[in-house]
Structure formats: structure tokens, C-alpha cells
């Protein structure tokens, strides 16, 4: 196969730069694999390694520093048959550390070639995450205080199934790259070389020194046995097909009843986490919509979802609703002090026509509204049942919904045992005198 290098854009690295060696080795590897230009995308980011895409005639995607692996992942998932080769420098690995770890864990079929020359070449020779502590770079003493990172050990720890450390001087470089590109999964090649423009001016680094430093580190020659597993993209497509059709086609709620009070009602349900307040709010909304009403529902709860207040605010209206805030509710269901405290300011704003269903013994702020105290506990109604029990009391008073609407909403939303238990609860609340 022919070279995929662009004859009109010859390599333009500093004389003696290792990147040029890597460039030709990569081209030979692509040729050996018999790949055409349109079958390969070179993804790169910032720095001298980011020049790679311009020297090839392949597809090319050049983006922001350290982010090459993110672009590559999007491309590969969308075009699984494309060979995706990513070049980054040691600088890019540092700034894109989270992406590097994620790519190792994910095992999408990408080949990452890290052109590791121990410094930021393009910006003037600053230290990177691989600069030795005793190296002399333009960063003054800063690099002396940080430990360089062993890219291969990190990659293997993070789950990369193909990890190789190499030097641009090694004779089998092309075959190493062929092996990495051919590997069906995420392959990382940490390729050591010299930056003649900056690093080597202050640090006389020879191939022998590189080789001896490498010998002191754990060897990585390719397959990381403990990390071998199916490729992510193939796994994704299998899992996607197995998932089947969408389980949540949005249910339609068509009016089937006449609303008992075709007037605007603002209702606030106040409880604590675990009181099923939000579910009761959704059920009330459903029931009201069965009566042809327009409804809004807003919920409020703490991010520690198993503790603290649970609040649901609803507006029911025969007309589409504009403002969705509830400031002067017509009905409050008060079941726990957490919710009451969260909305304590609304009680005083209610009108004398307003109604409050209050759990027996629960303290609430002063209010002009009519208070009905319900001894849920005395009727054997559990905490988790009280919100629905309160709805059934409202329904039995035919404002703002009827019992028929509530039952139908339950039948549409619940199944089997949950439905049976809810319908049973409605039966049990019949013993409680209906609020007037």
C-alpha cells in the first residue's frame, strides 16, 4: 500500500525531532495494514504532536489541548468501522488526565500514540507530567518538586488492555504500531523521544540513557492480560439492542370525567422524605387531568433525598396556566413538620375559605384558613399512606377531584399489588369523616 503522507505538506519538525521518526513509523504501520486515507481519522490536539494530522491525507480532527480522546470517542461510536488514531503529547496526557483514565476504563477501539518528550515543546520547554525531577527545564525549580508520572503503569491500573512503552530508536517501532492499531480495544503506546528544540538543549539525553531509564521502570510490551475484555463499542451496540424498545413512551391522559369544580385550585402537599408526597402530587395531577383540567406541578426536596422536607405544589385550572407559583393556596395538606417549615410563610396568606388537612398534633403557623385535623395514626394509616389518604379525603368532598377520578388515576398509574393496596387504602379512609 502507498504512503498516506501528504506530499504537499512535508513534515516540518525541528531538525532531529523524534516526532518525525514517529510520523514515518506511523505511516509505515498504516500502509502495512493496507488502510486507505478515508478509512483512517487522525485525531490530535495542541502542541507539536498536534501537527500530525496535517501531514496525513486521512480524515483529520484537531481540537483543544488534552481533549483528543473525547473527540475520538464520539467519532468512533458514530463510525465504528473507522480506524481512529489519536496523537497526544505528554502535555496532553497531563491536562487531559480524566479523559485518559476514562478511555482506559472504557476500552473503546482507539489507538493512542503518546509522543512523550518530557516537556511542553511548543510553548517553550516547560515541565510536563513526565519531566524527571532532576531535569533542567525553563520552569525553574518547579519540576524538581513533582514526581514524574509513569504513563504505562497508570494506563494499566486504569484498565487499558494494550499498553506498550517504546522509544523512537527501537527497530521494531513500526510493528509495535501495527500491533497497537490492529488491537480491537483501547491501545496506549507511550513513545519516548527527544525534543531537540528545548529539552535536549539543557539535558543531553542519549538513546542509551533513555534505554537505561526505561529498564528501571516496569516493562509494558503490549497486551495487558488482566485488562483484556470485550471492546466497548461492540458491547454498547449489543446492550442497546438488548434493551429493546423504549419503556417510557409518554402516557396520554385524556379527559374522561367532568371536573367537580371547574375552577382554579392551588394545592400544596407538605411532608417529609418518605411520605410519598411527590407521588401523591403526580396522582392528583393525573386525576385532575382526567377531569379535563390543566395542571402544573413543582416539587421541592433536599438533595439528601432520604431526609428533610418533601413539598409538591400544584395548580389545577380549567384554562391553561400562566404563572406557576403558588402563593395563596386553596388547600394545604400538612403531614410533617419538615414540609410545613419549608413553606411556613404561605399559611398566613391563605383566605378564610382555604382548607388545611392537618395531621393530628402537627404544629402549623397561624392561618385564617379552615383547619381539619385528621388522626391518621388513630385510623391505622401508616406514614407512607397518609398523602394518598389525604387525597381520598379531598376526593370524598368532591373538591378538587372525585373519588372516581382518583381511582381511575390509580388504575392508570399502578399495577398488581401496589394498585390493590392503594384501592384498599381508599376503602379504609371511608371510616374517616369527610372534611366539609
Amino acid at each position, binding site marked *: 500500500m502507498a504512503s498516506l503522507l501528504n506530499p504537499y505538506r512535508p513534515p516540518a519538525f525541528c531538525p532531529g525531532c523524534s516526532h518525525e521518526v514517529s510520523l514515518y513509523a506511523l505511516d509505515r504501520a498504516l500502509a502495512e495494514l493496507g488502510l486507505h*486515507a*478515508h478509512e483512517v*481519522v487522525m*485525531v490530535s490536539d495542541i502542541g507539536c504532536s498536534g501537527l500530525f*494530522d*496535517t501531514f496525513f*491525507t*486521512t*480524515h*483529520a*480532527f*484537531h*481540537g*483543544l489541548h488534552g*481533549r483528543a480522546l*473525547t*473527540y*475520538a*470517542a*464520539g*467519532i468512533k*461510536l*458514530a*463510525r465504528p*468501522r*473507522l480506524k481512529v488514531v489519536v496523537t497526544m503529547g505528554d502535555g496532553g496526557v497531563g491536562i487531559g488526565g*480524566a*479523559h485518559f*483514565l*476514562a478511555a482506559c476504563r472504557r476500552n473503546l477501539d482507539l489507538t493512542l500514540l503518546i509522543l512523550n518528550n518530557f516537556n511542553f515543546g511548543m510553548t517553550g520547554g516547560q515541565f510536563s507530567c513526565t519531566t524527571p525531577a532532576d531535569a533542567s527545564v525553563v520552569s525553574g525549580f518547579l519540576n524538581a518538586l513533582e514526581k514524574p508520572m509513569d504513563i504505562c503503569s497508570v494506563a494499566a491500573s486504569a484498565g487499558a488492555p494494550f499498553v506498550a512503552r517504546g522509544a523512537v530508536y527501537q527497530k521494531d517501532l513500526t510493528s509495535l504500531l501495527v500491533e497497537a492499531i490492529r488491537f480491537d480495544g483501547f491501545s496506549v503506546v507511550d513513545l519516548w523521544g527527544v525534543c531537540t528544540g528545548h529539552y535536549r538543549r539543557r539535558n543531553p539525553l542519549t538513546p542509551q540513557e533513555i534505554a537505561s531509564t526505561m529498564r528501571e521502570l516496569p516493562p509494558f510490551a503490549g497486551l495487558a492480560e488482566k485488562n483484556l475484555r470485550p471492546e466497548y463499542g461492540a458491547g*454498547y451496540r449489543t446492550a*442497546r439492542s438488548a434493551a*429493546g424498545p*423504549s*419503556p*417510557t413512551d*409518554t*402516557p*396520554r*391522559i*385524556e*379527559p374522561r370525567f367532568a371536573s367537580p369544580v371547574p375552577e382554579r385550585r392551588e394545592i400544596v402537599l407538605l411532608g417529609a422524605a418518605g411520605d410519598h408526597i411527590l407521588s401523591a402530587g*403526580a396522582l392528583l*395531577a*393525573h386525576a385532575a*387531568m382526567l377531569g379535563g*383540567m390543566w*395542571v*402544573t*406541578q*413543582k*416539587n421541592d*426536596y433536599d*438533595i439528601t433525598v432520604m431526609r428533610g422536607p418533601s413539598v409538591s405544589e400544584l395548580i389545577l385550572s380549567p384554562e*391553561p396556566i*400562566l*404563572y*406557576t*407559583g403558588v*402563593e395563596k393556596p386553596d388547600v394545604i395538606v400538612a403531614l410533617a413538620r419538615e414540609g410545613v417549615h419549608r413553606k411556613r410563610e404561605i399559611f398566613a396568606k391563605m383566605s378564610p375559605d382555604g382548607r388545611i388537612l392537618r395531621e393530628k398534633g402537627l404544629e402549623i403557623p397561624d392561618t385564617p384558613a379552615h383547619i381539619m385535623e385528621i388522626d391518621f395514626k388513630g385510623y391505622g394509616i401508616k406514614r407512607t399512606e397518609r398523602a394518598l389518604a389525604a387525597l381520598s379525603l379531598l376526593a370524598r368532598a368532591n373538591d378538587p377531584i372525585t373519588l372516581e377520578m382518583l381511582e381511575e388515576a390509580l388504575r392508570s398509574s399502578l399495577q398488581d399489588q401496589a394498585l390493590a393496596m392503594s384501592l384498599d387504602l381508599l376503602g379504609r379512609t371511608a371510616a374517616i369523616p369527610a372534611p366539609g
Partner: protein
Amino acid sequence: MERCFIDGNEAMAMGAIYAGCRFFAAYPITPAGTLFAAMLDRLPSAGGTVLQGEDEIAAIGYCLGASMTGMKVMTATSGPGISLYSENISFAVAGEIPIVIVDVMRQGPSTGAATLAADGDVQFLRWGCSGGLPIIVLVPSDVRDCFTLSVHAFNLAERFRCPVFLASNKEVGMMRETIDMEKVEKPRVIERTLHQSGPFLPFGVGEGEDVPAFLPIGGPVPVRQTSSTHGADGYLTTDSAAIQAGVERLQRKIESRREAFTFFDADRRTGARMLIVTYGVTARAARAAAAAILTETGSPISVLTLKTLWPVPEHLLLEAAEGMERVLVVEMNLGQYVHEVRRILCGTRVDFYGKMHGRLIAPAEIVREVLHG
């Protein structure tokens, strides 16, 4: 009648899928969470892809890669995530990569309050990335808008090859309301213009055109994409004439066509001497306030609800404010878009009313501001 009861985030996801979105990536954040969940419920089963990024930078990066293969892509976050998107937003501008970005705005600054609402990002969305070139921002007031504007956002992103923001708000995104799907406007879906024949230049435009025809990465013709300053061929350039022509084109392609995507609702009342200009969830309070004032005092007040914030709909503002003695801009922040309105309506009295305390601005506050401000 096809009534359902959904939140704005879910409606936005439904609009996205209707518009042809098949790739979604995000990082979990409140209050955009239900949008992510809705996409995960629907997209994989429709043959699409949903990814969770290791951070927001990755989430938008995945989208940019996928978009360049020809997919319609979306990401969703809130203010803190928009901060992290910034570098890739400017890439989408520079590389002319279609993407829809949802910002379900929450109380800021900084991490702010995850479950409290604000409209504090409306200037940030416009100016929050390097280079200062224009982007498009659409803003929904209700759940219906979330569907319709989501479709428009994809159409605009595809047509102009640019990032398009949906500036939602916790009080729209996480609020459930009745919508009648039958009555929801469903715009015709527009596809990206593909290069047809002849030599392909990835950023080349035809005579009199401002948007390059597209070919996908991964197709039979090699395509170049780059975040760096480039010529029509996608290679770096330092030719100042080419650079100037390039950035002027990026500006012109959005700004010169703004009339085509100036979305709004106008409640014009005969005899009105005052206009309220507003957007987002606050528009609902403003319309309620105007109705209350008419009932209580008989004074007609017009309300202009903007649904395209950027580019600024200059002609619409001028026309709506024609003959008005006073304009009141109401927004859920300390005064951001009012600067644009004052810039356009110089010479007219433009007042501002806003709060950024995590709660809705109530109609009564607006009534007070109109009558006694």
C-alpha cells in the same frame, strides 16, 4: 386531544428526538438531570447513542466528534457545566460544528443552588467563550416551547453549522405541566447541506453563501476539522485577509439572517403606552400581571416575550416599542438583557425589574413595578 403531563426537560428530549438527534452526551447535574434520563430512556432504543462523560468537557467533546461524522448531537447541563464547556463552544464556533447545548439555568454565581432557578447565564452564553463571535440562544417559557424550540435549535444548528443554546431554567425544565401534543408546533425538520460535487474544501463556501457544505468524517472523501485558525482548506493560515474574511463570515452567517429565527410571542394591546419585555418563565408572570392590570385599572399593557435572545432581535424590539412611553424589562437576574434593550431602544425610557433569589418573580411584583415604578 393528546394531553400528557411532562416536565420541560422531557419535552426538550422529545423535541430533540423528533428533530433527528441520535447522539447525546452529558455529565450529571441538577436541574438538567431529567433531560439526561429522558434521553437515556428513548435514544438507545431508537438506535442512538447516549454517553455519560467523565466531566462536562468530555461530554461536549464526544458530541463534537460525533457531529463531525454527520450526527445530530445534543448535550445538557447547567451554569457550572457551561463554564467547563467554554473551550469547546468556541471550537464549535470556529470549526462550524452543529451542536445543541441545553443550559437548564440555576441560581448562581458558581455552584450556587442546584434546585433554585435563575436566568443568570444569558450574557454568559453569549460571551462565555474566546473570540466573541455570535451564537444563537433560544429561551423557552413553558413545556410546549421546550419541544418546539428544541426542534428549531437543531434546525438552526444544522442550517448554520454553529452551536445553538436552549436557555432553559429550573422552573421550566423541572416543572411538569399539561401539554396537548396535538397542538404543539412541530417545525419541519431541516438537514445539514451536503457537498454535492467537485473538489471538496471543508470550509469553502459558494458565491453568495456563508455556510460551508458538509461532508462527514468517515465518509469516502477525507475531511479536515480544526479548532485552529484555518483557511477554506482546513489548514492553518496566517494570511490576514483570509483570517478577516473567515471571522466576518462566521459573524455574518448568524447575524445577517436573524429575522429568519426571531421567535417571540407578542401580546399587543390597543392603546398600550407601556411595553413589558421579558423571556423565559418570567414571561408567564408578566402576562398574568398585564391581564390583572387591565382588569383592575383598565390600562392596556403590551407584553413582548422573547424566545430568541441572541442574536438580539433588533427590528422586533424597535417595532414593538414603537410609540411606547415606557418599556419595562423583567428578568430573573440583576439586569442583563436590559442592556441590549437599552442599546436598541435608546431614547425610550427603559426600566428594569429583576430578582435573583431562587424564586419566581410574582405577577404582583410586576404589577407594582408597572403602576408605581
